[in-house]
Each structure stands twice: as structure tokens, then as C-alpha cells.
């Protein structure tokens, strides 16, 4: 295929180094690529990696204090385990059914039935206790966690796993109130509604490149060094107790706030430190809602991104961009 930019190759080979990986948290470095790639990855993770969430609620009986729409919205926001979401069908593309959730390819049915009996206690309807899935693979994340806990598969590093077991509160019922409903969970992406977003936070930062001019630094007294080190709002620098040299303890703690540079100028020593952002190196922090693991989130994001790029590549040069447009809006 002839391309206008043919000739010069801009191909690069990005590297990924994982620093930390837990079920719901990941921190990794992405090197040898540029901000557009990093940002594309970030945005795909937030808005285009599919999950499953409750999308259709049929209320049979609701005598609670919250109205039907209110409850439907709350149910939708409950994160459901969505490991299989990538292989599921969007209900609008599903041939096996007409999108009303009657087939297992595109939907999962949930049931909820709760009634506060005559005890004076207020009944809390929660995602753990009351929301029943018809598919064991898709259930509220806290149920999954409870199940894992029962199996003894709890990761030791998750401290909150031992804490709150109550799950997500849907509604409180007083004596005599009842809630019965059928809900259908579907596959979707965060772009359509935030409830389908698997990401809690995805951020990346440029890796800072900090160079201290040690010669100039040595012209400072210890007190001056101390006050310069303390001028940074985050703990980036420290003074070596032995050599009394200023050292970098945590470059990534730097928030590009320029405080130390301003301080150096105020002290009459411009050029004391030089800080640059490495434009081809990023540090990602990924947290998920629990719908999928952080690992899955990253890998699925790459898959989705690749699919999108394929859609661009498959296009004729002079062809219209309808397919891409459809892809972008549909995922």
C-alpha cells in the first residue's frame, strides 16, 4: 500500500516494564513511544474496554422509598465480574436474540427479591446478599471476592478484603416494604455510560529527568541545602547524612511544580537543578473497579486499540471513513 509518508519509517518498538501488579492495581513503565500512544492507551482503558453491567431492569414490585428509576440507576452502577466480556456479544449485534436479553451470548439475567418482614429492623438490600445472578461467571464483584475468600485465595496484600463485607447498598427497606425485580446485564463500553468503565483511575506521567548541578550545589551551606530540599512540596531530594550531598530519593515524586527551580533562582543560584520530562517514557498507574483485573484491563485495552488501528488500516486510502466512524461510536 502506497502511503504519503512512505519512505521514512516511524516504527518504534515500545517496551513495557511492570513495576507492580495486583488484582485491582497495576503500575508499569511504557518506554520508547510518544504521548499520543500513551494517551490512546489511557483513554481506551477508561472508555473502550468492555465490561458487563446491568442495563435493563424490570421491576415487579417496589414499595421501597426509592422510585424505580432511582433503583435502576443504582443497580447499573454495581460493578459485575466481566472477565468474559471480551468474548461476549453486544446485544445490538446479537443474532441469536433481538436484544431483549433472552440469549446467553449477549446478556446475563439477575434477580432480586427482598422483603423486610415484621421485625423492627431496617433491612439493607445489598449487592452481596440479594442480587442473584443466573451466570456464576458474572456476579457483583463483592460476591466474587467473598467467594474467593471462602476458597482461601485471598491475596495477603489486600487489606480491605478483611474489612467491609456488607457489599454495595442498594436500598434500605422498612417493615413491610418489598422489592422484587429482574435485571439484565449487558456488555457495553465506558463511552456509552460510565457504568461500563472498568477503570477507576488510569493516569500516566512523564518520567522526570532530574540533574543536580553538584558543583553549584557545593557552594551552598548545609542550611541552604536544607531549605532548598524542603522547598519541594513532595519528598524528591534529601541530604546524604554522611557526605552532606543533595541526592535524589524519589524522582517520580516530583509533580512538575517548579518549586525547587524557583527556590534556586530566589537563592541566586539559577541552574542548580535541571528537570526535564522524558518525552518517551511514561509511568502508568491503573486501578480497576474490580470488574476485571488490572492485567486484563491493560491487555484488553491493547487488544481494543489494535482492533481500532486495524479498522483504520483496512480502509482504502480514498475510501470514506464510515467504518471507522461506526467503530468509534460503536466500539
Amino acid at each position, binding site marked *: 500500500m502506497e502511503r504519503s509518508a512512505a519512505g521514512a519509517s516511524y516504527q518504534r518498538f515500545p517496551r513495557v516494564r511492570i513495576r507492580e501488579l495486583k488484582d485491582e492495581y497495576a503500575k508499569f513503565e511504557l518506554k520508547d513511544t510518544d504521548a499520543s500512544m500513551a494517551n490512546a492507551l489511557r483513554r481506551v482503558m477508561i472508555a473502550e474496554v468492555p465490561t458487563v453491567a446491568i442495563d435493563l431492569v424490570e421491576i415487579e414490585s417496589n414499595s421501597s422509598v426509592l422510585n424505580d428509576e432511582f433503583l435502576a440507576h443504582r443497580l447499573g*452502577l454495581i460493578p459485575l465480574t466481566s472477565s468474559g466480556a471480551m468474548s461476549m456479544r453486544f446485544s445490538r449485534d446479537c443474532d441469536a436474540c433481538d436484544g431483549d436479553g433472552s440469549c446467553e451470548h449477549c446478556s446475563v439475567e439477575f434477580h432480586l427479591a427482598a422483603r423486610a418482614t415484621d421485625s423492627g429492623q431496617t433491612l439493607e438490600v445489598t449487592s452481596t446478599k440479594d442480587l442473584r445472578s443466573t451466570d456464576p461467571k458474572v456476579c457483583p464483584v463483592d460476591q466474587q471476592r467473598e467467594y474467593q475468600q471462602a476458597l482461601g485465595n485471598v491475596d495477603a496484600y489486600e487489606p480491605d478484603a478483611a474489612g467491609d463485607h456488607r457489599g454495595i447498598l442498594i436500598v434500605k427497606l422498612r417493615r413491610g416494604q418489598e422489592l422484587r425485580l429482574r435485571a439484565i446485564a449487558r456488555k457495553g463500553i465506558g463511552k456509552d455510560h*460510565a457504568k461500563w468503565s472498568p477503570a477507576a483511575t488510569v493516569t500516566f506521567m512523564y518520567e522526570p529527568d532530574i540533574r543536580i548541578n553538584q558543583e553549584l550545589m557545593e557552594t551552598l551551606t548545609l542550611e541552604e541545602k536544607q531549605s532548598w530540599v524542603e522547598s519541594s512540596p513532595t519528598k524528591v531530594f534529601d541530604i546524604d547524612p554522611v557526605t552532606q550531598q543533595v541526592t535524589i530519593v524519589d524522582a517520580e515524586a516530583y509533580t512538575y511544580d517548579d518549586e525547587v527551580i524557583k527556590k534556586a533562582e530566589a537563592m541566586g543560584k539559577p541552574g542548580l537543578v535541571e528537570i526535564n520530562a522524558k518525552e518517551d517514557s511514561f509511568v502508568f498507574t491503573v486501578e480497576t473497579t474490580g470488574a476485571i483485573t488490572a492485567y486484563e484491563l491493560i491487555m484488553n485495552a491493547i487488544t481494543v486499540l489494535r482492533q481500532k488501528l486495524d479498522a483504520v488500516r483496512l480502509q482504502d486510502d480514498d475510501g470514506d471513513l464510515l467504518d471507522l466512524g461506526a467503530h468509534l461510536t460503536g466500539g
Partner: protein
Amino acid sequence: MPPATSAPDAPVAEGDAEAPPVPTYRSLAAPVSNPVDKFALLPAFLKVRGLVKEHIDSFNYFITKGIKNIVRANNRIEARSDPGIYLEYKNIYIGEPSVQVDFRVETITPHFCRLTDRTYSAPVIVDVEYTVGKTHTQHRKPSFTIGYMPIMLRSYACVLNGKDEAELARYGECPLDPGGYFIVKGAEKVILIQEQLSKNRIIIDTDNKGRVIASVTSSTHEVKSKTVICMEKEKIYLQLNQFTKAIPIIVVMKAMGIETDQEVVQMVGRDPRYADLLYLSIQECATERIYTQQQALQYMDDKVTYAGAGNIKDGRSKLILRDVFIAHVPVNNGNFQPKCIYTAVMLRRMLDAILNSDTFDDKDYVGNKRLELSGQLVSLLFEDLFKTMNTYAVDRMNKNSDMARSSPLDFSQLIMQQDVITSGLERAISTGNWDIKRFKMHRKGVSQVLSRLSYMASLGYMTRITPQFEKTRKTSGPRALQPSQWGMLCPCDTPEGEACGLTKNLALMTHVTTDQEEGPLRNLCFSLGVEDLSLLSGEEIHAPGSFLVMFNGLILGKHRQPQKFANNMRTFRRSGKIGEFVSVFVNEKQHCIHIASDGGRVCRPLIIADKGRARVKEHHMKELRDGIRSFDDFLRDGLIEYLDVNEENNALIALYEHVDQDGVQRSSITHIEIEPMTLLGVVAGLIPYPHHNQSPRNTYQCAMGKQAMGNIAYNQLFRADSLLYLLVYAQRPLLTTKTIELVGYDKLGAGQNATVAVMSYSGYDIEDAIVMNKSSLDRGFGRCIAMKKYTVTSEKYGDGISDRIAKPQRNKDGVLIKQNMRV
């Protein structure tokens, strides 16, 4: 110098030393003792008073006292042909809110009325005595219902009165709802507070031609009239609607029996400057050759507008002088002396104003204003309807007595026509048209539908004051912020545009007085050394050093030691011997003491200070916190008193006890504010740090705060408003002001605490807009519920066939039985 603590001449040592000690070097260096925190008084005040107590108080006054006075004044009706046939009202009272269904009485609750489009009304019950037939046999009928009256929520007659939160919940009522409105045909109606100029007070002003005028709007139960005395071409005239032309004032004086010019001048005052100003008027009278009362009356008879039936002008003017001219001054047994003196005082004040323009009255001064509340308005309406009902009954009786009837007719059958009072009250309150011909009253928009846009909107409605005069008056005077509004009317809360500055709102602690009985007060004044007017000659009235004593606009007499008299009156008030809302105002400029006990004055509570030291001490506040002492106890013990706008002029009020302000001598401070923030109203109280804002911003917020969506009431989901907007996740404001906590806004929040990032000073910036995060909207930020009422009539077709409302029916498989049903 002796130590500060042992001041030997401390007069009355009550607890700690009251008299300020002599400052010593050591006492000045000593740490300042902590000021008493008096904030707790404010919640205590609002607890006993509620947020809209003025409405409820005024209505309570009407149903407990006002209505009885009206009936007592018109308690007997007789047949014209036979005075032996009569009906006498022995007693009147308001029953429990109820409704008659098929001759059965059922009690009703406000919420039931809201939901069923009914009027929340209670029967007006009378005990009557009447005679029947030619024999005049006397009958008595106790508990006789003459009509139904809409009842103000939370008034004495309301079922909600004095109920606690749990009981209110059982009635389906929100405990935060302040009450003070009516429910008529299912709609909540507020009778807005009406602002008008004081009745029965002399106002010296200039008219649009620049002439000096003295005007009095007289208002008694029988007559309402306006008397104007004006100065034209240096001559003084009386203007009255009943005369075609202005009458020279000296002629009027002569007509009232003051025939010598010397007497006139003596009554006005001996100061030669007054005589100079009167000279031309006296001369004019002389050129008309009017020297006697007879001549004066004849002169005036010629100028009478309407000669009455039979076109007899003779003697008309005397009747006019008696009944219309300054009508509130009584003429007993043809004694015109009080009216003469009153006229002379009017003249004197006018001449004073000409000599010294400082003494003009300010129409916009809040002390010259009266607020008319729902009780008074309903009272007028009821009086009219009651009289109409009675005349109607008399007419019927007169007509019937001419005819022969099989059974004798009696009045008790005729006043049964319940519709007059029931429908009259209901119609007026539901349309807001107060058309009372008897009192020449034609007002529109007196009552309005209570806005339930938000909790704040309904609260704001209850404190709103609408002006009486037309809004198109573009003059800036009445719109400007008056210094006398301080603490009484909110300086921020006013609409923008047309009604700006005319529509006002009450401040947080304002109270509006109701009428108080005059007789005992009048007697007390005489006991305290007021010299009766009738015993004084014209010369004596204005003797230097003595002050005229005015009581509710009437001249009572004079007093030689005004300050002592005022202090005595105040002592009586503080000890609770006379009503706490009686105002005593010494006007040095006019040499007058004004005693006022009339209704509609605005006043507010203040802490009394002796030589700048508050009477409220820490131990009082502790008792309040411990619940031993209530706000009323503070009043009763003379620690706090109510001051109206006029009496505030005799006081020096400090904001805080401990601060020395503006070089004011501490010993001259007489009162201390309870809490300075109460100068704002309910709506303006929501603004955090209002004193850091540009002033119009606060005004804008007062208009917008009412538009905030949120929760309306605890019973919001059980209400059937035609349109209701609710916020799904309403939040309490992160920053709560004291007012917010007092009015319960933290319990019925409107709005959400948003996180807003502000960046870019002059780049890609936008003004007055924000870019929203879609995900936050998805997750419920700003999510709202709109509820709309649809009304359906279930028709009856006869033969026992009627529409019925049911839910869609399904068969066993869950399929709808009828396909045209929707779920």
C-alpha cells in the same frame, strides 16, 4: 487609687458588680473576660416562635380575640316590624377542622385536604339567643354553625398545633414545614404581608406641587377617611373629599367652636413665628367675614360635595366635621375640643416643618409603616361577610313578616344560609381578590399560591412583604435601603427589576405586633401622671418643658416629666405588667411621647444593657443550655425586651458587649444585639461570608437560592403537586452557616457539592459556564426526578357502572390480557 474590685459606692450589686469599676493600671492590664456567648438565644427564640410566627400569631389573635370583638360589636339583629323578634350572638368560636359528609361531621387533616382538593376549614360556631313568633318565646341554641372558615396551618385551630415530630409524621406532615398558610381547594395559599403607611398618624410631607401638607389617614371600625391640611400661597386649607373646594383652616376651627383668633394661635403655640405664618390665613377668614361658628358652618355647607338624600345642605358640614374629618378622634356629646387640639397640633407640626425642614416626616421610614398580616385581612373579610349575612337575614325577615305564614319564622333559620361566610372566605383566599365595598377595599393578589419549587422558596414566600401602592412608581425613594430597616427587614433579599426595593423580606428575628387592648394602658398613662387633655387650656398644651402624650395616634394629654414617664412605662413593660410589644418613644424634636400598642408594627428582641453591661450573664445562658430557662423567661425577667423601630431611636444598641466602638461611651449603651447575623433574612442567611461579597451578589443569590433543586419536604413523595422537581442525590452544603442550621436547610438540602477545577486565566477560557465530566453525570451527579400530576375523572355511568382504576392484568404466563394495556 483603690483596687478596682472594691467600689464602695456600687449601688445595687446583683451577682457581680454592675457599675463599671474605676479603671486602674492593673485592671486595664488584666485579661479581658470572655464575652458571654449569646448565640444560644437565637435557637431558643426560633424554637418558641417558629420561622413564620408573625403569620400564625396574627391569625391566632383573630380567631381568639378579633372574631369575638367583631361579633360583640354586631351582636344583635332585630326585625324591623317587631323589635321583639331578635337574635343575639352570645359567643363565637372556631371548632375543629372538619368537613360535613352526609350530615356527618368528619375531622380532617391538612394533608388530606391537599390530596383531595378540599379546603382545610373549621366551623365557625356561635351560641345564639332568639325569639320566635308573636309570643316572643325565647330560645337558646348553643353550638350553631354559621359557616366554615379556612384555617391557617399550625394556628391554634389547626390539628397540627403543638404536635411533635412523630405525631406530625402520622398526619403526613413535614416537621420542617413552617405552616402559616391556608389550604383552599387543595392549593396552598399564602396571604402575603402587606405594607402600608401608618393609620391615624400625622405625616408632614410635601405633595407633588411642592406644597407642605399634613395628612392623616383615619381608620376606625366604623369609618375610614383621609384628611389633608395643606399650605397654598402661604395660606392654610383643609382638603377633604366631602368638600368641593379647600376650606381655609381658620374657618374649620371656627366651625368647631374656636371662634377667637387668639385662641387658635394659643392652641398652635405662642411662638410669634407661628403667628406670623398663620397671619394670612386669619386675614383671609376675616375678609370672608366669618366670625362665628354659625357663619363658618354656613360657609362650609355651601361647599359640600354630596348633600345627601333630600339635598339638604344645611347642617351637613357639621356632620362631616364630626364623622369624617380626622375621624379617629372621637367626638363625645358634641365636644369638639379634642378635634380642635388635634387640628392645632397638625398645624403646629406643619409650621414647624416650614420653619425647620428637618422636621418633615419620611414616608419611607419603617417606623411610619404598618404591616398588615393574614389575621387582619381575614378579619376584615369576616367582618364584612358577617354583616352581610346579618343584613341578609334581616331583609328576609322583613319581607317575610309582611306575609302570612303557617309557622312563625325566626332568625336562627335565616342565618343558616351558611354559604355567605363559607364561600366568601373561600373565594377571597383562593382568588386573592379582596373586594370589600364596606371598607372601600379593592385589592388583587393578596393571596398567592405557595411556591414549592424548593424548601427555601416556600420559606421565602412566608417572609415576603408586598407594597400597597402601585409598582409603576419609578421614584427611587421607597426603593432605597432605609437605615431604619436594620434588623427588621433584610437588606439583601429583594427582587431585581420592577419590584426592586419595594418587595421586601423580614429579617430573622423580626416580630410583627398584633393589637393590644387600649383601655388599661390609657388608664395606666393617667396614673403615671399624664394630665388629661380636656382639663388643659390651649395655652397650657404647648407649655415649654412639657411633652404631649400620644397614644396610638390620639392625644392623651401632656406630661411634665417626659423622661421619667417613659422610664416608668418601660419598667412596667420589662416587669411584664403591660404587654411586651408596647412601645414607648420619646420624640425630643416634636416634644411628644408616643405610646403605641397597635398591630402591624415591626419590632425585634434586644438584650437590655445597664450602662453598657448586658443583663444576660453566663449563668443565664447556662440555665438556657440546661433547659431550665426558655426565651420567654428572659423576657419575663426583664433581660430582653422588644423594641419597635420608633423606640430604637431612644436606644443605643451595641453589636457586641465587649467591643468599644467608634469612641461611643460605653455607659451610654442601652441595648446589645442578640446576634448581628439576624439582620439578614432567612434566604440571605444561606450565604456564607456575605460580608465578603459585592452587595448585589448577595441580592442575586437571594433570588437564585429559591430556584435550587433538591428536597422540598419530608413528605414530598406523598404530595400531589402539579409539577415537582427533586434531586436524586441532594446533599447538605459542606459549609453551613448558622442560619442554615436554624432553618433546617441542612436537613432538606438543595444542590450538590461539586468539585470544580478552575484554570486558564486568559487562554481557552469560557465565561459563566462549566464543562461537565460526562462520567460524573452518568454516575448520578445532578440527576433529578421530575414528577407530574395527571388528573383523571372516574366517570359514573349510572346503573352502578363506573370507571375503576386498576393495574394491568396478566394471565398465568405473565402476558397482558388486553393488548392495549401498557405497563
